[in-house]
């Protein structure tokens, strides 16, 4: 399998009030073209920080990243158009309607207007928001916002989708719907990278799972193999074994 993302010795140190925080600590891995790649780990493990670096938003302190063969930091202009991002902190303009939010994204990605309008109608229907298209997103529920954010991220038909905690805080129905969407996009040949707190979700959805703890990558394999290796019945036990039992904030 050919890698579409290559991460080598990636490190990020934040300076916060004179204190050094090593958010990501010498992490190396590949993501293969066309796979669903899950990333689990307790709060503060460094998942979102890795996403921010992979998506060219923040600069690494050390190491290198290649996305679709392009160097992050040198060829960001080539990378941004082919990736789609659903940030952990959903970021929709509350005073724009669902359609206007989508159009803004489409325009900023230079999607031709007729194609864009066609996609918007299609996707709104796909996530069941077609009747809410002309409402301001400020009044949307968490699940509606998550669904809208997802289609905002794919309006330019990206090759790779980054999805940071897509189901946190959502009801079971919406989670099911999100999983269906993830599989659908993956079925269209898109590579999907997502983070989650839910073992069940990582287990069900991912081809491979990376387990993060305190900035380090502690395990990376198919869910079945992870379970086998640690002689655990489920991924939850694997996770606790690998990351310890203490509660993080």
């Amino acid at each position, binding site marked *: 399998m050919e890698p579409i993302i290559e991460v080598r010795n990636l490190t990020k140190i934040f300076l916060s009030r004179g204190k050094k925080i090593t958010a990501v600590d010498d992490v190396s891995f590949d993501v293969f073209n066309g796979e669903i790649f899950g990333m689990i780990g307790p709060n503060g493990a460094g998942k979102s920080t890795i996403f921010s670096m992979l998506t*060219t*938003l923040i600069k690494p302190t050390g190491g290198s990243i290649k996305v679709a063969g392009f160097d992050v930091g040198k060829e960001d202009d080539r990378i941004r158009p082919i990736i789609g*991002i659903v940030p952990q902190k959903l*970021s929709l303009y509350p005073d*724009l309607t669902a359609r*206007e939010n989508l159009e803004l994204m489409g325009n*900023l990605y*230079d999607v031709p207007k007729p194609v864009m309008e066609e996609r918007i109608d299609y996707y709104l229907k796909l996530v069941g928001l077609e009747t809410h298209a002309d409402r301001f997103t400020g009044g949307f529920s968490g699940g509606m916002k998550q669904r809208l954010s997802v289609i905002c991220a794919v309006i330019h038909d990206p090759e790779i989708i980054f999805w940071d905690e897509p189901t946190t805080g959502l009801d079971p129905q919406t989670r099911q719907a999100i999983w269906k969407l993830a599989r659908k996009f993956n079925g269209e040949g898109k590579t999907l990278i997502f983070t989650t707190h839910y073992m069940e979700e990582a287990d069900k959805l991912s081809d491979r799972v990376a387990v993060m703890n305190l900035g380090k990558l502690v395990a990376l394999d198919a869910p079945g193999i992870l379970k086998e290796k640690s002689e655990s019945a489920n991924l939850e036990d694997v996770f606790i074994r690998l990351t310890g039992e203490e509660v993080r904030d």
Partner: protein
Amino acid sequence: MTIRTELKHSWIIMIKEFRQLFRKKALLVPLFLFPIIMIVFFGYGMGGTVKNAPILIVNDDTGTASGPLVQEIGSYTPKYGGNPMFSITYTKDMSQSEAESKIDAGLYKAVLLIPHDYSDRVAKNESTTLTLLTDSSDTTTSGIIINFMKQFLAKAGPVSLNIPKIYGDLEYLDFLTPAVIALTIFFGSVATTGSAIAGEKQDGTIVRILMTPVSKRSVILGKTLYQLILQLARAVILIFAAFAIMGFKMNGSWLLVALVLVIFTLGGVGLGIVMSAIADDMESFFQLNMLFTLPSMFVTGVFFPLSSIPDWMRYIAYLLPLTYANNAMRAIMIKGQGLNAISTDLIILSLFALITFTAGVRLFRREA
């Protein structure tokens, strides 16, 4: 990325800003109405009328030509008021300083001094100058009296009025309007730029925008274009309102006014970006904003002439960009002066814009 694409992105950002603006009804009202209310509020007092204001006329005229003039002033009754405007006392041979002391003592609201050669000069069709002293502690009444005298004497032939000190020979509305425009544009550009970015930081949308192929440059340019259009529109509306409601007359070049306002708006946008970069959310932005703008409002000579404030305050005023904008706007709009007269102001305002913009672009990070 090509320049064309970057400009297209800026355009998209600009349209987005306008769309959001027109959704914020609560913001639109103060943005456009507040400055107009301010002008009407301050200007109206000045444009109104007074009743039986005690006035002293020191008539040193050796001839008789001043007789009818003086009488007409004395009996003048405004169109919609039953009472004469002034209650006049006549005297002669009084020095200007003695007259001033009478005003200071509160005996008169104003003193009109008619020179001894008034009749001679009128007879020879030469221009003469009358001196009008007013009570500078009562700007409202002073403004009304000055207004009246100017209009009145304009009908009386080649007579000009010398009004020492107050607002340097300006009527209050003339004095006020250019500075209110500068203040409005400055406060508006700082507050709307800064609060918009602080808000976008708070809800994460600015980070989302910066994840797209759009460059930081395009985002800032888009927001700047939006501000330039918005603030210039506000200025035009204000000037028009001052004209329509108060009869304000623009004496100078519109182009120069636009030049000053464009440069000043750039400075305001830069400052807004800098302050929103320092502040993490809306609330801390507004506190920071208050800290900077409140002193500007009172110290820079918008409502009172700089000459009327204590020295230490004046030194602060010279550190604030609004002072120079006020100066330039008054020079152009009222005195009709050209580029030469405002070159120092323009240089200082350009420096202000350059510094805040450079700092703003640097501080405006992708990392949130």
